């Protein structure tokens, strides 16, 4: 049933298509990382109306299917917004980025919450303006612990890229489908797509795991006998829980 010759013959095309998949993954991830941070900061705004709108955006994006969002963006919103309609890749990056920014904002939020209250108070006592409190004191402490969770989201986004085949992006899955439409042999093509995703996801997850171990080691070294920073460990536990939920 399984035909090795056929499998080998389509493999180069599939691997070549990975390039597009990677573009979509990293583009979407960077978009989501930046967008998520902005949403997290807006969620901390002293102005309640900004917080409310922020909440609304997050709930809306999370409660609607990514596929519907992609269709809506690619076939309607982006073409009406721009004189020349963005390509499927750009639309896909925006769609994935927007969708996952709402999840990433939650990761940032837990990282920010894990910074002890005393840090905010020390910044105030030194008369730091709000913006500099964020950039010099809070974010440098809040972000490093979120890196493993961020890494997990990179994997999640990577695995979501086949959805972009629905908006005509020629990535790995579309390439497989194209091959099938000629050969009528779905078994080899879809199996190969699955194996490719498995191998790459697994390698990513090993990297994330290494990062996590290094981070834990650094944290236990730096918070060894530090001030009674119980909120910190509590926050870390929260973060770890989130990793598990994602995984």
């Amino acid at each position, binding site marked *: 049933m399984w035909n090795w010759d056929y499998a080998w013959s389509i493999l180069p095309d599939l691997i070549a298509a990975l390039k597009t998949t990677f573009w979509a993954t990293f583009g979407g991830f960077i978009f989501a990382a930046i967008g998520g941070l902005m949403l997290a900061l807006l969620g901390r705004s002293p102005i309640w109306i900004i917080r409310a709108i922020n909440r609304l955006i997050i709930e809306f994006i999370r409660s609607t299917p990514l596929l519907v969002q992609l269709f809506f963006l690619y076939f309607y919103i982006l073409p009406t917004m721009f004189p020349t309609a963005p390509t499927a890749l750009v639309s896909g990056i925006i769609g994935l980025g927007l969708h996952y920014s709402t999840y990433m904002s939650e990761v940032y939020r837990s990282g920010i919450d894990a910074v*002890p209250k*005393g*840090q905010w*108070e*020390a910044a*105030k*006592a*030194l*008369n*730091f*303006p*709000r913006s*500099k409190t964020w950039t*010099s*004191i809070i974010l*440098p*402490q809040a972000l490093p612990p979120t890196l493993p969770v961020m890494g997990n989201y990179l994997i999640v986004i990577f695995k979501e890229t086949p959805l972009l085949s629905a908006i005509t992006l020629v990535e790995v899955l579309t390439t497989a489908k194209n091959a099938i439409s000629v050969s009528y042999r779905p078994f080899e093509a879809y199996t190969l797509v699955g194996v490719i995703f498995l191998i790459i996801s697994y390698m990513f997850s090993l990297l994330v795991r290494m990062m996590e171990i290094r981070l834990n080691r650094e944290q236990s*070294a*730096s*918070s*060894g*006998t*530090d*001030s*009674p920073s119980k909120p910190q460990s509590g926050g870390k536990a929260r973060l770890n829980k989130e990793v598990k939920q994602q995984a």
Partner: protein
Amino acid sequence: MNTTELEKTAGQEAPARTRKPQGASTGVQPIVRYEHVSKSFGDLEVLHDINLDIAPGEKVAMIGPSGSGKTTLGRMLMTLEEPSGGMITVDGEPLWHMKSKGRLVKANEAHLHRMRGKIGMVFQHFNLFPHMSVLRNVTIGPRKVLGVSTDEAHERAVTMLGKVGLGDKLDVYPSMLSGGQKQRVAIARALVMSPKIMVFDEVTSALDPELVGEVLEVIKEIASEGEMAMMLITHEMDFARDVADRVIFGAEGHIVEQGPPEQIFENPQSERLQSFLSRFRL
């Protein structure tokens, strides 16, 4: 019940101030003034109608049992807690209020920012920035807030860290320091901003007993230099006696008794203070 007591004790400030000439003349504008200040957390009133003046350069020790509201008094001055009522004036200007169209309104962030420049604070739990070296903990304030050049901030920080006896720990991270060393860094970090009044909030309470001395020594030395007023919230009675020009005893949200250290510790008037002090003379 204590308003009359307050009025009575307020008169005792004058002899207290004569100990330190710079704040002595009675006509001097206080650096900090609390007028009818109260503070509630929900239903719990932790401070009730507090009236208190601190003269420029004056060292005031606040003693009293836990829950007496003395820490809240300091935190309101550092703008970490907002008073529920009354008025705090710093250097002649309202702290939590500002004038707008001839009326006193709630202060905005710009006003608070300007006022905070006159106030400093050292915390019980140090609150050093763990992601920065000792040197950067001390230079970051002058650089980011006062706009001082990197070189000058470095110079000021090195001088200040030398003063607190940590000139050899510049590149060390806070996690590698003992509690006493951390607190001395925190003191240098607050001092380098040159506040006019500094709140020391139970700065030795989180320290191992053998490390308390080194921190108190540093504070004594700073106190002896003079110009900066100090609000020392403390449980160290000997320290309060040595450093303070005036000791204030508070309990249950009231100022119960105040006066020069000799009077407070040798000749306490109120029963409440007598029973409080007796617990320290075991």
